[in-house]
């Protein structure tokens, strides 16, 4: 069962930006990291998923509900933390919680109280006077107390200091450990997602570059140093993402790498000189470079 599914989702905003035939598949219970550089279209995708904007074409299903037709049904089971705060600044923390809770049937006021204590939130403080970190925590508090089936978090820790970031992520992981909530979290902070996500999708310039389990993403991307490589490779047991000529040899970035594949080089008449493990951030960067070079961007 999929919590989020999009088919050939296309959205254009002027001449400069387009989401192209986006096909996302987020399994129920997954913590799905939606990675991409700034301007890749992450926020736009989220806004389309939640019916805040209308797509030009394609289909969206969130928790089995067709969006935008039955978006309010999907929203009743979804907690959304937007990129920028949107709560009413003239309300106090307590008032904002009561206001928010009035709209969600399953809102857990007891849990909200626990989170207020856990986060050390000043209940009688007006939102206009909250710091950025406190506002981030309040947003997280509100959506967690909804006890949603799906959490959609748009760069929820962006701009927060490390202490607040840890608080927010800890609360998120605590909540996820209590049930089978699906989390869709967008970020450009690769290391942050590496710790919490089990699936990852990479978006670049409106195009989904890849979507795969986190362990495959972390383990499968390697940088190889190869010499005497033939110009035409034919079938390879790995996915060649990028091939760059250097003065002495070639640098390949490959996906789906496994140790026994070294034998393939002997058969192809090439010499594999070095296999370099890439951490998630390096893998992410190489994947984007590869994507851009193949699409001619």
């Amino acid at each position, binding site marked *: 069962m999929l919590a989020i599914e999009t088919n050939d989702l296309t959205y254009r905003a002027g001449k400069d930006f387009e989401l192209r035939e986006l096909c996302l598949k987020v399994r129920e219970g997954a913590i799905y990291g939606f990675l991409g550089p700034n301007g890749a279209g992450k926020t736009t995708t989220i806004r389309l998923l*939640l*019916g*805040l904007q209308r797509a030009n074409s394609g289909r969206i299903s969130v928790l089995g509900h067709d969006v935008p037709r039955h978006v*309010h*049904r999907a*929203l*009743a*089971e*979804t907690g*959304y933390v*937007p990129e*920028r705060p*949107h*709560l*009413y600044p*003239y*309300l106090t923390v307590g*008032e904002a919680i*009561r*206001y928010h809770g*009035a*709209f*969600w049937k399953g809102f857990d006021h007891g849990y909200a109280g626990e989170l207020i204590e856990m986060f050390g939130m000043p209940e009688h403080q007006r939102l206009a006077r909250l710091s950025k970190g406190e506002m981030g925590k309040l947003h997280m508090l509100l959506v967690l107390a909804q006890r949603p089936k799906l959490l959609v978090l748009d760069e929820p820790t962006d701009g927060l200091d490390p202490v607040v970031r840890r608080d927010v992520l800890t609360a998120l992981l605590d909540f996820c450990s209590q049930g089978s909530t699906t989390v869709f979290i967008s970020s450009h902070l690769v290391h942050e997602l590496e710790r919490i996500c089990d699936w990852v999708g990479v978006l670049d310039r409106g195009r989904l570059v890849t979507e795969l389990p986190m362990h495959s993403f972390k383990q499968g991307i390697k940088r190889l140093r190869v010499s005497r490589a033939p110009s035409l490779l034919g079938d390879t047991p790995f996915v060649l993402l990028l091939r760059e000529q250097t003065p002495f040899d070639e640098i390949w970035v490959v996906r789906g790498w496994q140790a026994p594949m070294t034998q393939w080089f002997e058969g192809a008449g090439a010499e594999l000189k070095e296999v370099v493990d890439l951490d998630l951030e390096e893998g992410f960067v190489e994947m984007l470079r590869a994507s851009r070079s193949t699409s001619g961007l």
Partner: protein
Amino acid sequence: MFGQVLRAQWKYSRAAVAVFTVLCFAAPLATVYYRPGEVRTGGVPVSSWLLGAERVGAAIPVLALLLGVVFGLGAWAPDTAGRHVYALAMPVPRWHYVLLRFGAGAALTTFPVGSLVAGCLIAAAAVTLPEGVHAYPVQLGLRFGFAVLVCFALIFTLAIATRRAVLGVLGVLGGMVMADVLLGAAGQESVVTETMFRLLTTWPGPLSILIGRWALFDV
């Protein structure tokens, strides 16, 4: 749900509510500024006294219009400031959310409307009217309330409309003024703006309620 929306709206608009409540209370009291005692002693003719009271009373439809504008914009302003993200992420159909906001804004107008009725009743009770002159406090209050509701609804509709729709309305109005100017420059008598104004301000035009006599005292 409505209670929370109303509470939030009250918190946002309470300064405006207070100001308009005071103004609405004061307006009918100001209509008795011309003292009827002077009429009875022959110092001021009845017609002149009524005219004076009516002139002061002309402020009441202006108040209704201002109230409609301020409360109509205010009912939607918190969501406009947040670019409607919070509103659109609510798990209720959009028409439902709009009704909640409309209801909360409209409910708050009852404070100034109620204070105007109270002001009318006090003003009517405070004076001994000359022979043949009557006070109409309840009628004036009801008319004021209805005028406020009409203006509030019109402005609220504009406030929730898309930018394109608002630009369309403004474009039509601007086009009419432009047509008048061009026809005037060509030496033609133009009636475009005048016709539009007449359509809006004569029955069943939506602003017709603001036009005419707003007299607390009449024969």
